[in-house]
């Protein structure tokens, strides 16, 4: 091996080691602090205990906020998936006047009107309607934000479903609704599952909208509660935060593993699924 090759090899190994450390080291805290008898902000080998878990489970709002997260996510995900499937199917199969313009508009809307850019009018709207602290309303707002991207991706999926199935079903006298329910949906299942998981993960991780719209601690999902966990002294409650972070993060990771194992890791640009 020449000197130059050795140098290159060393550089390569150094880069890989640095990259791996850069990405992995911050995450180790999530593995150590939940089990440490004196968890701090910073990484150390834990003095093993399960006391933090007891503290978390007996916290007055911790488990309730996870339930709130589920409620919020189920509303947002169900609405997004059902409405997006219906819309994508109609857009894929029927030439509605102005369809291409509508598709462009959806693509634009999904990236232009971000939660940040729309937080003021959305807050004002919910405030004036008296819907601050309403979990269902917040779920609908989140769904509204996810729908354009969901429709767009699902349309791509449904475009690739062979039309001959539908034609045969029609020949045998199936109604349009039956065709959708019994022919199209089963064939488009991977696409719908992807959107389902994507929507759930997006809603589960969303901080800004629940933070704006759910001011009452009884209605707040885990994402918001996690930022407000304080001990009696008013500083961050480090007995609860690490465990709760872990509990809150696990469903997201599990869903990704499930989808990538079942359907393969699909890469839809901005869509993390």
């Amino acid at each position, binding site marked *: 091996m020449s000197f130059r090759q050795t140098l290159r090899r060393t550089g390569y190994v150094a880069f890989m080691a640095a990259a791996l450390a850069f990405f992995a080291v911050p995450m*180790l805290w999530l593995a150590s602090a939940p089990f440490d008898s004196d968890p701090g902000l910073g990484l150390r080998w834990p003095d093993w205990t399960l006391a933090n878990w007891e503290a978390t489970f007996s916290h007055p709002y911790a488990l309730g906020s996870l339930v709130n997260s589920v409620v919020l996510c189920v509303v947002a995900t169900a609405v997004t998936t059902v409405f997006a499937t219906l819309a994508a199917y109609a857009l894929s199969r029927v030439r509605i006047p102005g369809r291409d313009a509508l598709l462009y508009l959806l693509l634009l809307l*999904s990236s232009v*009107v971000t*939660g940040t850019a729309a937080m003021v009018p959305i807050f004002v709207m919910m405030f004036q309607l008296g819907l601050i602290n309403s979990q269902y309303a917040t779920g609908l707002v989140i769904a*509204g934000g996810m729908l354009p991207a969901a429709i767009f991706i699902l349309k791509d999926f449904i475009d690739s479903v062979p039309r001959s199935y539908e034609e045969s079903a029609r020949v045998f006298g199936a109604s349009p609704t039956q065709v959708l329910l019994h022919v199209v949906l089963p064939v488009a299942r991977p696409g719908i599952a992807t959107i389902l998981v994507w929507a759930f993960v997006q809603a589960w991780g969303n901080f800004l909208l629940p933070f704006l719209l759910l001011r009452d601690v009884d209605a707040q999902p885990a994402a918001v509660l996690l930022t407000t966990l304080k001990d009696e002294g008013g500083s961050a409650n480090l007995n609860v935060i690490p465990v709760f972070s872990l509990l809150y993060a696990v469903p997201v990771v599990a869903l990704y593993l499930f989808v990538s194992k079942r359907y393969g890791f699909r890469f839809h640009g901005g869509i993390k699924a």
Partner: protein
Amino acid sequence: MVSAPPAEVAAPRRVPGDRDTAGLGVARAIGFLAPGLLLIGLFLVFPALWTIYIGLTNYTLTGTTSTAPAFVGLDNFAEALDDALFGNALWLTLLFVIGSAVLGQNILGFALAWFLRGARVWLRRTVEAFVLLSWILPSVVVAYLWIAVLDRDGGTLGALLGSPGTAWLVEYPMASLIVFNTWRGTAFSMMLYSSALAAVPPSQLETARTMGASGWQTVRDVVFPHIRGHVLTNTLLISLWTANDFSPFLLTAGGPNHESETLPVFIYRQAISSGRLGYAAAISFLLLVVNLVVALVYLVLLRKRS
């Protein structure tokens, strides 16, 4: 981020054999579309348009102007021009976008994609898993992870450097946020460049190698011409996301003393903490316009490519 736009999906196209095989009919198709469009209209289109109106008033969260806001024309925009804090927010957002998206995520993402190409399977899988994990973890959790890295007393970075006592988030807030966001978002660029690199003809890489080109020469002269379009669209997208990212709020809340107050945090603090909804709406409108311009350029580029 509520809405992640589909990046590398082709622009809308007409499917061959585009016909109503299901016998839906236009009327029923519009019925299928209606619920989705209704929600999009209520929670995306209407707020975007309403921002313009609120931005032209002196509407506030409390006080007399909360019940009877007055139309003030372009006063809010005129005020923004004179507002040193707004100028500060613009400048910090620019720093944040250039540092963490245009440079950080782009370069690190490409480097990872390039060097992982020929790596052993276990190494590739391990590195990719961690990079992806940093992307999919919820933002609130990620914020705590980095607070633990950068904390003054027991923080991991201080311990690794052997010199605790530096409060990174207080002393170097913008640098901290830039490193944080590079960590957070590199996965997207890495995946995009991985798939772009797969389209570079192996024969050309082979030729470059036999002619003794260095790695850098190969990237510059052989690879880059193939992926130029991807670099452009990727940069636009990650810049747009970064400019709209609310995570800085979770790490520094804009502090200390506005030193890390990027536009999203500025808007939040003006609207909710100070209750100046009209002024915050005017600033939001400017952000919407910038988003719109970037997204339009992006669509035009996509269309050109396909």
